[in-house]
């Protein structure tokens, strides 16, 4: 690790100011990606702004028809939250399947979605459940939040405050995890929401994406059989030592059918 200036601001404004003043500043949430990257010397920011002591970024609460999760809420908190388990069990089980106990007890929802790793689980929840992301400047519709490989709609220095998940009628998330890292080789969130059926896929492409053909088929008949013949193109899907693009395309269908069966069950 190279030396950097460490900031521990106690307001959101002070965090934003420290970032703006830094030559090459990085925000730290749970540090589960940033710290290993720094240790490997794969990045050397001039300043790290730790959000740990910034108030207003924690807590899980019900607000009308939505569950609002603070940006600094740990995966383990979401998994154990009685509110989440009662309203959106699919979200609790998604959080419970992220990484290992250390990652779940340190990693945060804000850190996960801002990093926008193509194999992260939370992007499937943000897009699949039709969530809204609130930042220190505005709100961003979940569908518009992820823009590419490790890229989001956030501006330079913009900080995520919370994520609001509308409570679906039914939903389920099923993934094929990499056995070592628990990253999603392919993960699919299927949700029957007030704004229609949503099918969001993570792990398969550069970034989370929806499968319109499955959503249409499920709108008429919410059953695994309805999407049995929906083919997913392997074009532009990820290919690595864990799975070929063809295999990932196949897995999208399998995970989607399991998710539909789990949600319908």
């Amino acid at each position, binding site marked *: 690790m190279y030396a950097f200036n460490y900031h521990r601001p106690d307001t959101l404004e002070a965090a934003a100011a420290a970032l703006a003043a830094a030559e*090459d500043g990085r925000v730290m949430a749970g540090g589960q990606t940033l710290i290993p990257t720094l240790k490997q*010397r*794969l*990045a050397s920011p001039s300043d790290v702004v730790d959000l740990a002591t910034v108030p207003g970024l924690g807590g899980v609460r019900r607000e009308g028809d939505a569950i609002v999760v603070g940006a600094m809420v740990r995966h383990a908190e979401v998994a154990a939250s009685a509110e989440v388990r009662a309203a959106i069990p699919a979200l609790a089980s998604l959080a419970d399947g992220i990484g290992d106990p250390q990652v779940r007890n340190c990693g945060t929802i804000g850190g996960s979605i801002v*990093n926008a*790793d193509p194999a992260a689980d939370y992007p499937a929840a943000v897009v699949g459940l039709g969530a809204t992301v609130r930042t220190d400047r505005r709100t961003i519709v979940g569908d518009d939040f992820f823009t590419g490989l*490790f890229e989001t709609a956030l501006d330079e220095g913009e900080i995520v405050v919370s994520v609001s998940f509308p409570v679906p009628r039914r939903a389920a998330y099923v993934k094929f995890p990499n056995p070592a890292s628990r990253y999603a080789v392919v993960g699919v969130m299927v949700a029957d929401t007030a704004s229609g059926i949503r099918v969001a896929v993570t792990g398969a492409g550069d970034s989370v994406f929806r499968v319109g053909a499955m959503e249409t088929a499920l709108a008429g008949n919410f059953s695994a059989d309805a999407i049995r013949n929906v083919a997913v193109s392997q074009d*532009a899907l990820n290919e*690595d030592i864990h799975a070929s693009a063809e295999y990932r395309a196949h897995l999208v269908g399998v995970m989607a059918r399991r998710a539909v069966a789990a949600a319908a069950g």
Partner: protein
Amino acid sequence: MDITGEYRIPLPREAVFAALNDPDVLGRCIPGCEALEQVDEDEYSADVVAKIGPVKARFQATITVSNLNPPESYTLSGEGRGGAAGFASGSADVSLETVDEDTVLRYTASIRPGGKIAQVGSRLMGGTARKLGAEFFSRFVEVVTPAPLSDERGPAGQEE
């Protein structure tokens, strides 16, 4: 892994080929390029900052053009050392075809990382290659395409 792409540019093939060999254009199109200098007829040296997710590394790169077959095709290659991050090389075979009054640019590119970035980032290399290729060529099309008369785009209006 090879990645491919195709763009249609409203310019004659000769003009597109000349732009592909113009250091100023290359410097503006190479993702993360902070400085580019011609060191030989077919060789340039460049400072490139590669930023992919949490990783941000500065590379000292050598850019070479080869297989010159004006105005039809050439190969653009790059090779860089990023200190502790490791090293990477990549190349793109570019071909130009005249269709009506326009030029269709096609490329096939690949990227080969080494050292630490290859160790920790093997699962991301396909996506990274796609992203860098698309960034370079879409920026290239933007830079060389003549602006409509009403558009005030020029060097001064170009964002960094």
